[in-house]
């Protein structure tokens, strides 16, 4: 068995026991990257020497007894929209192609303090806008399970790196499904925490009221363990929440007896691939056989989630991306006449088509005359959607369904029809609108051998229900095998 087959927690234990060093683990990851990266393109930035140096520093602290946590010495990949001090952070965009942050995001600092060792920065859809990692300015990433297919997005580089053993775990961010959907497409575990659980400080904003950082990893145990490291209150993020507890690993129990699971009927309508449907319902059966009480119910408003989400997300994006103007950092156009022309040319040359599309739409829904009809309307519907979930969670401990209507699409088949691509987000975006935690765990494969993911949503702050059910499912079903 190779080091690479270990989960992050298993590797951490071996490092702690002195059986493996952080440098050896990093060397194994680097060897893997050197053999598969040319084909997959999971990373935007990967500096071998720097990674080995960081691993050596971790080894010293582990030897000295100052680093003792479960992730000490474990190599991690970071999505390229999280600032990393002194390390290029591009958001997979030309406009930030040369940006070197002067500080690190809070989640990255917490990982470093726990002794996890950064390998590099992973590829993504430009500014996290996309579902395929094809909108990156630095080339697409391929799905390691089948390289003719996309890895999903926007955290496609992170999910693919986990699936390809190019890291032991990764951080992603999820605005409308960007952790859960690539996790599903690549056959790994991904968790989007309750809004405000992981600090957004240093996360380059897309939709600030929706964005959350979370783990992509090999199994549920890793997922809970990583959460305990990255979650926490942060005074540098005004939306960070002081939770009553930050314990996630105590939920790693193989017991779902009496747990009430609701399956929204509306999630199993037209558009859902039969193979995905069957795998997800079979997973529900597994939990039922283990003692959970599973029943169908009407969630309502499901069909309104996508227009609500894209109105709010593009509005926030148009405002958040206003800062990229070529003045203080990033790309600046070479020829211009005056300040305003410099802004316009810089932005037009620096942003890709999908980002421009969303900025235009967001600017429109916020513009005078349309603000009430579109933006405020969407915020009112968001309140209704939140209420529908509140009612559901009064009855159920968790909601179970698919992550995406299909398995990973073929490369090149998605971008030409944006609406069709946006419709693929139907099962994931509600969690962002309502602030809920959601987990994606592998639950099968389709005929082409592509992974299928099971999604479970919990009420706010109830990650432990998700972890418990996901862990119990994993114990019964087993982990994903390529």
């Amino acid at each position, binding site marked *: 068995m190779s080091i690479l087959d270990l989960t992050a927690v298993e590797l951490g234990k071996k490092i702690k026991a002195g059986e493996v060093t952080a440098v050896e683990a990093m060397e194994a990851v680097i060897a893997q990257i050197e053999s598969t990266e040319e084909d997959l393109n999971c990373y935007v930035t990967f500096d071998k020497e720097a990674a080995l140096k960081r691993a050596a520093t971790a080894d010293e602290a582990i030897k000295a007894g100052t680093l003792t946590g479960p992730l000490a010495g474990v190599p991690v990949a970071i999505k390229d929209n999280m600032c990393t001090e002194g390390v290029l952070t591009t958001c997979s965009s030309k406009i930030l192609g*040369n940006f*070197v942050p*002067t*500080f690190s995001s809070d989640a990255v600092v917490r990982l470093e303090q726990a002794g996890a060792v950064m390998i590099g920065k992973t590829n993504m859809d430009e500014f996290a806008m996309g579902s395929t990692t094809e909108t990156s300015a630095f080339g697409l990433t391929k799905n390691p399970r089948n390289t003719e297919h996309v890895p999903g997005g926007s955290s496609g580089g992170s999910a693919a790196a986990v699936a390809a053993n190019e890291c032991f775990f990764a951080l992603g961010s999820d605005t409308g499904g960007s952790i859960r959907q690539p996790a599903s497409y690549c056959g790994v575990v991904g968790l989007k925490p309750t*809004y*405000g659980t992981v600090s957004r400080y240093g996360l380059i904003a897309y939709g600030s*009221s929706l964005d959350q950082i979370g783990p992509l990893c090999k199994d549920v145990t890793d997922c809970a363990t990583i959460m305990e490291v990255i979650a926490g209150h942060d*005074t540098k993020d*005004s*939306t960070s929440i002081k939770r009553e507890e930050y314990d996630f690993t105590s939920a790693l129990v193989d017991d779902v007896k009496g747990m009430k699971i609701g399956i929204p009927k509306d999630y199993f309508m037209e558009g859902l691939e039969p193979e995905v449907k069957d795998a997800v319902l079979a997973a529900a059966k597994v939990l039922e056989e283990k003692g959970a009480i599973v029943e169908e119910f009407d969630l309502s408003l499901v069909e*309104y989630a*996508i*227009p609500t989400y*894209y*109105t709010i997300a593009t509005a926030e994006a*148009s405002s958040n991306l206003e800062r990229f*103007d*070529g*003045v*203080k*950092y*990033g*790309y*600046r156009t070479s020829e*211009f006449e*005056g*300040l305003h022309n*410099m*802004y*316009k*040319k810089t*932005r*037009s040359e620096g942003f890709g*088509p999908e980002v*421009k*599309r969303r*900025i*235009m*739409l*967001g*600017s*429109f829904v*916020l*513009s005078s005359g349309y603000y009430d*009809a*579109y933006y405020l*309307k*969407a*915020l*009112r*519907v*968001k*309140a*209704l959607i*939140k209420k529908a979930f509140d009612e559901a969670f009064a009855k159920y401990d968790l909601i179970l369904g698919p992550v995406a209507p299909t398995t990973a699409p073929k490369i090149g088949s998605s971008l030409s029809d*944006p*609406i069709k691509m946006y419709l693929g987000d139907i099962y994931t975006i509600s969690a962002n609108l*309502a*602030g809920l935690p959601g987990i994606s765990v592998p639950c099968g494969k389709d005929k082409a051998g592509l992974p299928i993911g099971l999604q479970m949503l919990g009420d*706010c702050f109830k990650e432990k229900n998700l972890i418990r059910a996901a862990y119990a499912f994993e114990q019964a079903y087993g982990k994903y095998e390529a």
Partner: protein
Amino acid sequence: MANVISDETIEYVGILAKLELSDAEKEAAKKDMASMLDHFDKLSELDTTGIEPMSHVFPVENVMREDEVTNGDGSEMTLANAPERKDTAFVVPKTVD
């Protein structure tokens, strides 16, 4: 209901968005925006009378702190990212005559 985006609207949105679109991009944007707005119009089916707009799921409050420097002097690292700099300043085109 089918939305039609006029040339004037695209020009106006381009100004708001600070984007300079080519003619081909403008045509594509008109089409994209119209079809997205058709999709967004679905929300008008719902009666939201008396429903307060929800910008955040949890109540958001201002977070105050003393105005003290805690992160040291990062000016040199910050200026290192400048597209153009002169001494300790960012260079930009003339903004006032």
